[in-house]
C-alpha cells in the first residue's frame, strides 16, 4: 500500500491540520507515514500545502512530481496542483470556493462543497474536515474510526466543536465515496 | 617596625612605588637586574610607617610589607 496526497489551500483553511490528522491515523493503524508541509512566509495568508505519504514500507521520497491525489481548497491551489495529478489519480475540489473544474479526462475529479457541508452543521471553519473525509472516503486509506479518534483528540475539550467536526467529516466521507464512484462511471 | 621587602627580580623599575610612598623612602637601584631594569630599593627603612601603599601600587607583585609588633591601620584596603 502506498498513498500519496497533497492538501492545498490558503493559510487558515486548516489544510495542515487535515494532513496531520491523516498522518496520525496512518501511524495509529501501524503504517509508515510522512507529513511534509510547505513552510515559510507563504504559510501566512498565501497558499499553503502539505504532502502526506502513508505506506507499508519505509518511505523514500516525501516529494513527488505527480501526486496520486490532490485536495484543493481554493482556486490558486487548483491552478497550481490540478495539472500535476498522476494519470488515473484523484482530484478533490472544494466546490464551495472553486467554480472552475479540471478539464482532465485521465483522472477522477470529485467536487465536494466543503464549506457548505461544514456551514450546514454550524461553522464553515470545519471545511477541512469535509475535505479530509472526502479524501478518506474516496480512498479508504484509513478507517473512519481512526480519523474520528484523532478528531476527538484535537477537539475533545469542546463537545460542540467535536460534534460539528464529526458530522462534517462523515458527510465529507460520504461525498468522497459517492463522488469517486460517479467519477469512475464517467471515465468509463 | 615595618619593613618593605622588594623582589628585585620581579621589579621592572616603573617607580610607581617611589611616587606612592608618603615618606619618600624608596628609590631605584643603580644596578640593572637580570631583566635589564633598575629595580626599586628601600633607601631609609627606619622611616617606613607600614602604610603598604608601595605594595598596593606595584603592578608586578614585587613588593611585600612585613611587620614586627603592632601596625596602625591607616585606611581600609
Amino acid at each position: 500500500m502506498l498513498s500519496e496526497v497533497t492538501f492545498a489551500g490558503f493559510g487558515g483553511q486548516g489544510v495542515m491540520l487535515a494532513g496531520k490528522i491523516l498522518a496520525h491515523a496512518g501511524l495509529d493503524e501501524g503504517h509508515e507515514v510522512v507529513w511534509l508541509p510547505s513552510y515559510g512566509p507563504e504559510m501566512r495568508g498565501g497558499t499553503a500545502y502539505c504532502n502526506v505519504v502513508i505506506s507499508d514500507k519505509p518511505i523514500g521520497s516525501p516529494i513527488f512530481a505527480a501526486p496520486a491525489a490532490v485536495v484543493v481548497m481554493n482556486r490558486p491551489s487548483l491552478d497550481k496542483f490540478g495539472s500535476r495529478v498522476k494519470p488515473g489519480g484523484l482530484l478533490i475540489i472544494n466546490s464551495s470556493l472553486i467554480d472552475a473544474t479540471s478539464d482532465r479526462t485521465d483522472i477522477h475529479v470529485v467536487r465536494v462543497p466543503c464549506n457548505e457541508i461544514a456551514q450546514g452543521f454550524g461553522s464553515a471553519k470545519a471545511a477541512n474536515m469535509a475535505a479530509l473525509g472526502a479524501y478518506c472516503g474516496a480512498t479508504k486509506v484509513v478507517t473512519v474510526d481512526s480519523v474520528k479518534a484523532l478528531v476527538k483528540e484535537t477537539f475533545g475539550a469542546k463537545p460542540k466543536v467535536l460534534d460539528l467536526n464529526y458530522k462534517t467529516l462523515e458527510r465529507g466521507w460520504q461525498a468522497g465515496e459517492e463522488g469517486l464512484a460517479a467519477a469512475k462511471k464517467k471515465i468509463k | 617596625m615595618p619593613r618593605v621587602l622588594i623582589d628585585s627580580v620581579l621589579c621592572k623599575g616603573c617607580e610607581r612605588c617611589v611616587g606612592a610612598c608618603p615618606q619618600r623612602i624608596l628609590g631605584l637601584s643603580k644596578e640593572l637586574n637580570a631583566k635589564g631594569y633598575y629595580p626599586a630599593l628601600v633607601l631609609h627603612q627606619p622611616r617606613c610607617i607600614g602604610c603598604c601603599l608601595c605594595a598596593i601600587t606595584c603592578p608586578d607583585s614585587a613588593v611585600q610589607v612585613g611587620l614586627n609588633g603592632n601596625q596602625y591601620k591607616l585606611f581600609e584596603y
Partner: protein
Amino acid sequence: MELVFKNTTGLVSVPRHYCPGCTHGVIHRMVAEVIEELGVRESAVGISPVGCSVIAYNYFNCDMQQAAHGRAPALATGIKRVRPDLTVFTYQGDGDLASIGTAETVQAANRGEKVTVIFVNNAIYGMTGGQMAPTTMPGQVTTTSPAGRDVNHCGYPIRVVELLATLRTPAYLVRVSAHDEVHLVQAKQAIRKAFRYQLEGRCFSFVEVLSICPTNWGLSPAEASQWLANTMIPYYPLGEIKTPDDGPVTEAHHAQ
C-alpha cells in the same frame, strides 16, 4: 616577622609580561585578592580576553577560559547559566569589551547575568601596538589616528558605564581608576563589592577601571598617571553610577 601585605594566593607567582608601570598587574592583583578574601578561589572561573591580558589565564590561580575577541560575556553567560554555583568573572580591555564585544557586553548586562565584569579602559589598543580604541580621547594620537582622534570622523569616546546605566537590569555599575595609590584603594573596594553582589545573586556587576598604558601613550608611568588624571577622569567621571536596590535579592530576572 609577619607579612602584613603579602602576595595573594589568587595569583600564580610567576613574572607577568606587562610593560613597566602598566596597571594591568595591579588590577589582576586586586581581583585575585578579592577572590582570596571572599574565599571563592576554588569556585571561581575567570575569562581572559583578547588584548594585552590575553594570557591572564597564566596569572590567575583559579580555573580560566580564554575567549574569542569580545565574547567573554557570552562565555561567562554559558558558564554561569549551567553552573550557577561558580563565581564567574571576565577581565576585558576596551577594544575587546567596548568595540568588537559591545553587543555581548550590553546584552549580558541587560539579561542580568550574575557575573562580574572587570573592564580595563586605557584608551588605546595595547597589544596590537597602540591603535585607536573606542575609548581613545578626542585629540589623542594613536597609530591609527596620527593627527589625534577626530571626533568629526569617528565620534566621541564611549562611556560604557553610562551606556549600561540606561539599562534597568544591571545591579552594580562603577568607574574607578588605577592611576595612583589613593584611587587604587577605592578601586579595590569597588571590585570587592562587585564580587560580593555576585555572591548575593544580584544581576550583573561591572567595574570599569581607568588604566594607564605608558608604552603606547609614549609617557613615563608617572607622566601617564598625570595624563589619566588630567585628561581621562574629567571625561570619564569616577564613582558608583548604579547600585543595587535595597532589600532582598529577588529572582525577578531569571531563575536558577
